[in-house]
């Protein structure tokens, strides 16, 4: 009995080696002979092969495309390094503080007050970043910076003057309640004053815009004109006409660059692609014009673009292929 069990184990081990393609020629002959000896043996072999086949199918499931997975990892690494840099740049932390302190002293002695005064500004520039950078201001206010954003604040006097300067780009702000003075954002011609809240701010050459997620925000022009924005409202300042407007926010996806949540309601695929490109930082190419006009109604909430495109492909019956550093959507599946 024991002998037959040992033999069985040995044969099973040979089947596994055969499936792994590591079996020796001699053992292969032995295994073939055993397989041909009876239908039961042949079935045992076939069952093992079936299990291996299905294990292979499991192996190929669930994972991301390695290129895409690498992009995500690369973003995390860049983001961690950026955070570390920001941390190191804070006064009192790490070597760079002493280097900066020495630099500041040198500037004061050689270039006078103006340059030294500039030195007190903490500048964060995410132009080179592909990932979202998170930052906490000295008062605890949390910022999420989209790529291509430049902000600065007075690190020395921040507790007295809680002001953030948005030079350009996009930032989502969650202001921490504070007993001190009001939090404000300098957008050039207009200033945004927070009254305890979370909101999204963008600024480019043509306009500055604020969308309020929670609480209240005041948007004030240099001329004294002011709009008060509550939850769900958008304030826009047009740089050309110097016009300040208040409207209901119709862009359901204003924060999708940060949370990857999208709501599309009969939105042409071309518009969908623009929004996805912005959030995932990967170019999307739509090959046919009629596909660009196809309308998508869907809620997408995926950390990866692959998953979002899978849903779109199934909904609009189109094909998604990956070209170099871009995704291509084409008509037939």
């Amino acid at each position, binding site marked *: 009995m024991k002998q037959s069990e040992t033999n069985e184990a040995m044969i099973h081990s040979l089947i*596994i080696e055969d499936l792994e393609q590591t079996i020796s020629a001699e053992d292969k002959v032995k295994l073939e002979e055993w397989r041909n000896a009876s239908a039961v043996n042949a079935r045992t072999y076939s069952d093992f092969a079936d299990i291996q086949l299905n294990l292979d199918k499991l192996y190929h499931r669930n994972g991301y495309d*390695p290129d895409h997975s690498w992009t995500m990892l690369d973003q995390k690494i860049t983001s961690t390094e950026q955070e570390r840099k920001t941390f190191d740049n804070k006064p009192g932390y790490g070597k760079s503080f002493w280097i900066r302190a020495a630099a500041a002293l040198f500037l004061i002695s050689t270039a006078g007050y103006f340059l030294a005064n500039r030195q007190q500004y903490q500048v964060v520039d995410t132009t080179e970043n592909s990932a979202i950078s998170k930052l906490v201001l000295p008062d605890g206010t949390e910022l999420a910076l989209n790529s291509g954003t430049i902000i600065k604040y007075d690190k020395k006097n921040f507790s007295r003057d809680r002001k953030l300067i948005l030079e350009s780009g996009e930032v989502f702000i969650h202001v921490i309640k504070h007993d001190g003075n009001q939090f404000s954002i300098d957008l050039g011609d207009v200033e945004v004053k927070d009254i305890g809240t979370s909101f999204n701010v963008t600024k480019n050459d043509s306009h500055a815009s604020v969308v309020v997620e929670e609480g209240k925000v005041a948007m004030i022009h240099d001329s004294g004109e002011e709009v008060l924005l509550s939850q769900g409202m958008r304030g826009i300042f047009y740089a050309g006409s110097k016009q300040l407007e208040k409207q209901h926010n119709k862009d359901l996806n204003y924060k999708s660059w940060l949370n990857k949540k999208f709501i599309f309601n009969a939105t042409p695929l071309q518009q969908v692609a623009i929004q996805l490109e912005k959030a995932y930082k990967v170019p999307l190419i739509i090959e046919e014009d009629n596909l660009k006009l196809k309308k998508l109604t869907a809620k997408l909430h995926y950390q990866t673009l692959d998953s979002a495109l899978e849903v779109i492909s199934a909904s609009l019956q189109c094909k998604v292929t990956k070209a170099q550093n871009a995704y291509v959507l084409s008509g037939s599946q």
Partner: protein
Amino acid sequence: MKAQQSHLPEADKELIAAIIDRDKKVFELFYKRYYKQLFAVAYRYTGHTQTAEEVVHDVFIMIWNKAAQLNIQQSMKSYLFRAVVNSALNILKKEKTDAEKHNAYLSVQDAAVSESTTQDEMEEEVLRGLEEALALLPEKCRQVMYLSRFGRLKQKEIAEQMNISIKTVKNHLTYGFHKLREHMEKRKTMVRALIFLILNAL
């Protein structure tokens, strides 16, 4: 680099040196070479795509940040798999309740076996059964099966990594396959019985 790492294969020494020099291209190739296997192993333990992805990412972030201080016993490959398995097991420990919920989910799926009709659904059913059977294997046997079938490690590599003999690896593999076959056979019988009952009821 640590002096005690002089025993490492030349290719691993070069790799570590490149990571210390912040060579992203080399690191990217290194990542892509092992990603699929590591993910497949991590996924078997966690049962969750995002968590498995994070386990793999965390190991690589740690290697990127601390390449100079790593204490690698055999090889970088072996270190990777060990780190991923340990990290996945730690997560499982922390989320024991969730794992119990996962098992409860599997048993519910078991009862729903008769729902499958199409070819795709049948295949889905078989694969789900296989995952379930893998999860029921004894711990060491399961680890050998995961490293072999999903990590694509050779029997010798598994033996070195788990500090066991090749003979023991072979025993775990044959036992594992035997148990999977037994479990799948049981499911097949169950499906046949259910189909028979359904046909009789029509």
